[in-house]
């Protein structure tokens, strides 16, 4: 079986990479700065050079491994490299002034002007242009920046050119960065599978490729199946099956992750409601507006920081958290004292009054801040992403999940292990008895409602990172939140946790099959039917208290 030469633009480049790698192994890994002197020598050789000499210089430039050589090579490829007839000095020139504007190719500084006849172009032909492109590729592979080396190796991984095997072997030997070496080894294995190597070498290569299960591995293995011997084909088939199984697993894991991420958002929005609705039995339709207030507190904090202390921007969310809790909590207590306490025992009236309140709060925010979306920035520690196996996780989402769980844990601790939590539970379970024991039930009611609202405000800080901060922010969460609490079981915080996360995951697992909107509709229908089956939710409170 002859080694097939793939139809790709890379072989020429790779041959040169190989050559240069062999020539200049000693350079790799060493410091690559402060080598202007050899560059300067090479540059001066370009003045008036013929094609053969220029080609030699290009190779030598690539061999330096110096990033400073890249602009020279680029200019040469573009035909922007000129030399001055008077002193043979080489410049990058652009049209302008009285003829050309010159700049120093090494420093990029302007170097005056030159008339049209004072300078001459360093001439290039097509094969030289190819050589230049190849040399630029080599420079990237041998760059001191591991990211650039990795990109070069990944290019080989895609081209799978057998010619790249030797240079890659050489590069792997000296590569210090384990991650980059891994990519290089995979690239070499891919090239081996594509070459005329014997089966033993290929079976080794299969193992290397299958070590990481991604789409790339699958397509490399599938491509290698063509014309493989029986024994090799068997190994390949097994590897493909394994890779596909892994891929399916990772894709399921990614869906779970998206689901958990959505679930944590639902949890944040619903957890305050689990207190006001679940524990107190108050239907607070203005709950979403507490979330909105939290988001606007974040906005105001960031505005102040932007204008007065830009250095604190990364801490803006941490500063906003207690403020949002306090603001929303105070508004909540005011609502409880002003309206809700007159409506205890009349849940439907409470629903209407708090809905009215939510309209007032929305309009108040709209009048204060305007109807448009406000810009809330993400601190640096919340932007970016990282890979975990086959998963891509964004830091923002990770933090929101962590944050939701922390809020949940703190809430559980407060309810279980503080005297306020004890009083709160006592008042919920038996108001008159609690009152007889000296608990100020009115005050406890107000504090409980304030706690639920404050947590909604804290949720608003987190949601400001992933949603538009506008007066309508709260409305988009209120229905979902109620469904989560009802689904999980009223009066049960763990039910809210399980309800939020399972609804989030369910939603994300439906999405690939149905699309986002239909998935959401199906979830709603599911909840409606579920409530028919279990009117008290997943984890119903048992006993006489429920009636």
């Amino acid at each position, binding site marked *: 079986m002859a080694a097939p030469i793939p139809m790709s633009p890379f072989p020429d480049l790779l041959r040169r990479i190989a050559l240069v790698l062999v020539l200049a192994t000693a350079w790799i890994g060493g410091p690559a700065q402060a080598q202007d002197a050899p560059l300067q020598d090479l540059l001066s050789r370009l003045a008036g050079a013929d094609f053969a000499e220029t080609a030699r210089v290009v190779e030598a430039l690539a061999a330096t491994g110096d990033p400073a050589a890249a602009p020279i090579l680029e200019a040469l490829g573009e035909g922007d490299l000129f030399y001055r007839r008077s002193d043979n000095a080489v410049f990058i020139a652009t049209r302008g002034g009285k003829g050309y504007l010159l700049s120093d190719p090494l420093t990029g500084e302007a170097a005056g002007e030159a008339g049209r006849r004072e300078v001459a172009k360093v001439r290039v032909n097509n094969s030289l242009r190819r050589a230049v492109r190849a040399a630029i590729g080599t420079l990237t592979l041998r760059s001191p920046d591991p990211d650039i080396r990795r990109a070069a190796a990944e290019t080989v991984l895609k081209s799978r050119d057998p010619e790249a095997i030797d240079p890659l072997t050489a590069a792997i030997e000296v590569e210090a960065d384990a991650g980059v070496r891994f990519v290089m080894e995979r690239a070499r294995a891919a090239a081996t599978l594509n070459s005329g190597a014997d089966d033993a070498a290929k079976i080794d290569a299969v193992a290397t490729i299958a070590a990481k299960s991604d789409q790339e591995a699958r397509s490399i293995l599938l491509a290698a199946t063509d014309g493989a011997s029986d024994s090799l084909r068997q190994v390949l088939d097994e590897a493909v099956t394994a890779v596909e199984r892994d891929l399916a697993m990772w894709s399921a894991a990614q869906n779970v992750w998206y689901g958990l991420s959505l679930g944590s958002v639902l949890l944040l929005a619903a957890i305050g409601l689990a207190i006001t609705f679940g524990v107190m039995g108050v239907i607070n339709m203005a709950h979403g507006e507490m979330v909105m207030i939290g988001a606007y507190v974040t906005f105001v904090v960031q505005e102040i920081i932007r204008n007065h202390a830009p250095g604190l921007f990364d801490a803006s969310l941490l500063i906003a958290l207690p403020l949002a809790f306090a603001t929303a909590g105070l508004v909540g207590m005011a609502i409880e004292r002003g*309206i809700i306490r007159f409506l205890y025992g009349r849940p439907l009236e409470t629903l209407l009054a708090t809905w009215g309140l939510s309209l007032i709060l929305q309009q108040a925010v709209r009048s204060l801040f305007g109807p448009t979306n406000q810009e809330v920035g993400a601190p640096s520690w919340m932007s970016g992403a990282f890979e975990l196996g086959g998963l891509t996780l964004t830091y923002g989402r990770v933090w929101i999940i962590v944050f939701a769980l922390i809020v949940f844990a703190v809430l559980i601790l407060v309810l279980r292990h503080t005297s306020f939590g004890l009083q709160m539970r006592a008042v919920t379970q038996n108001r008159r008895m609690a009152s007889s024991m000296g608990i100020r039930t009115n005050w406890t009611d107000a504090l409980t409602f304030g706690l639920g609202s404050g947590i909604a405000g804290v949720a608003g800080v987190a949601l400001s990172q992933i949603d538009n901060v506008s007066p309508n922010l709260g409305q988009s969460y209120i229905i979902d939140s109620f469904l989560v609490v009802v689904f999980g079981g009223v009066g049960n915080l763990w039910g809210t946790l399980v309800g939020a996360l399972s609804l989030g995951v369910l939603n994300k697992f439906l999405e690939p099959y149905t699309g986002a909107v239909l998935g959401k509709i199906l979830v709603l229908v599911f909840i409606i039917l579920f409530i028919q089956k279990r009117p008290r939710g997943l984890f119903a409170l048992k006993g006489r208290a429920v009636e």
Partner: protein
Amino acid sequence: MMLTDRFLRLTGTSGLILLACLAAAAIYVPVANQFIPETSAFHVSTASVVVFGKYLCFAMLALSIDLVWGYCGILSLGHGAFFALGGYAMGMHLMREIGPRGVYGNPVLPDFMVFLNWQELPWYWYGFDQFWFALLMVVAVPGLLAFVFGYLAFRSRVTGVYLSIITQAMTFALMLAFFRNEMGFGGNNGLTDFKDVLGFNLQADSTRIGLYLLSVATLAAAFLVCRAIVLSRLGKVLIAVRDAESRTRFIGYRVEHYKLFVFTVSAMMAGVAGALYVPQVGIINPGEFAPANSIEAVVWVAVGGRGTLVGAVIGGIGVNLGKSYFTGALPEIWLFALGGLFVVVTLFMPKGILGLLSRWRRKKAPAETEARTAAEAEERA
């Protein structure tokens, strides 16, 4: 004389006043529109006729909510869905009636389907070219949805707030569904550009006055139907369910059957209101399903006076008059006013405007007061 007595019993005093007002409005508005010159202060412009017709539809929606909430204690936050479904059924007929006069000139497919490159009419659009079929669907679709939904919910004894929340989820799910282009109901834009109904041009003054009169008559009829239900033996059971559901069940009534009946009737009534609404405003879109609309309709009832029927009509018309005024004159203030109305009504006027009126009357006749407050206290407990 027997007949008059029975009619008076059916309407009640306030109902009679309401019907008289409706009759007066039915006579005055068309006359003022057609025969009083535009320069006069008493003239009613055609645009206003349409607006009044719209209010009457809202009043009918409020009436249907009062029937289930005021008399059976079912607070539905999804009645807007039944209203919109009725509207869509009518809108589909009006779409079909456009025929080849659409922008794309397709004799069968509505414009939006041509735009989406659909080749055939979806099966659920069949029959809507017939007016009688559309009328049937106007009551059948909301009725069927309410029946299925109510059957499931009442059978498993989902009550109170839980029912309110899942009705809200229902209308929310429908809104999302109707926003989808693939559903075949015009997606985001809904159904619009109607030309005529039964051959009458929808833009003509005469058609608009005709629709207005039809709205008045339907509202009056719906009011009488509600009164008839409420005054019947069945109505007494409904009130018993509202005030003490468990006790009624223990006495031996199949509570869920009564609830299901009244819920379905109410949904059909809301559907009819929607069907009258659409030809007058000339558009129906998924926004009508928005949960906020349903809650707003509940507030109309609360403002007018829950459990009075007449109050629902007053609330439906009154709040919308206020809305038109505020959104025109002081758009910033409207949501404050509406929100404030919710709070004030629930806190200080639990019986709405009619409650205030009757309290005022009671002050004039203090002898009656004691008996009534006792009855009221019992009702609340």
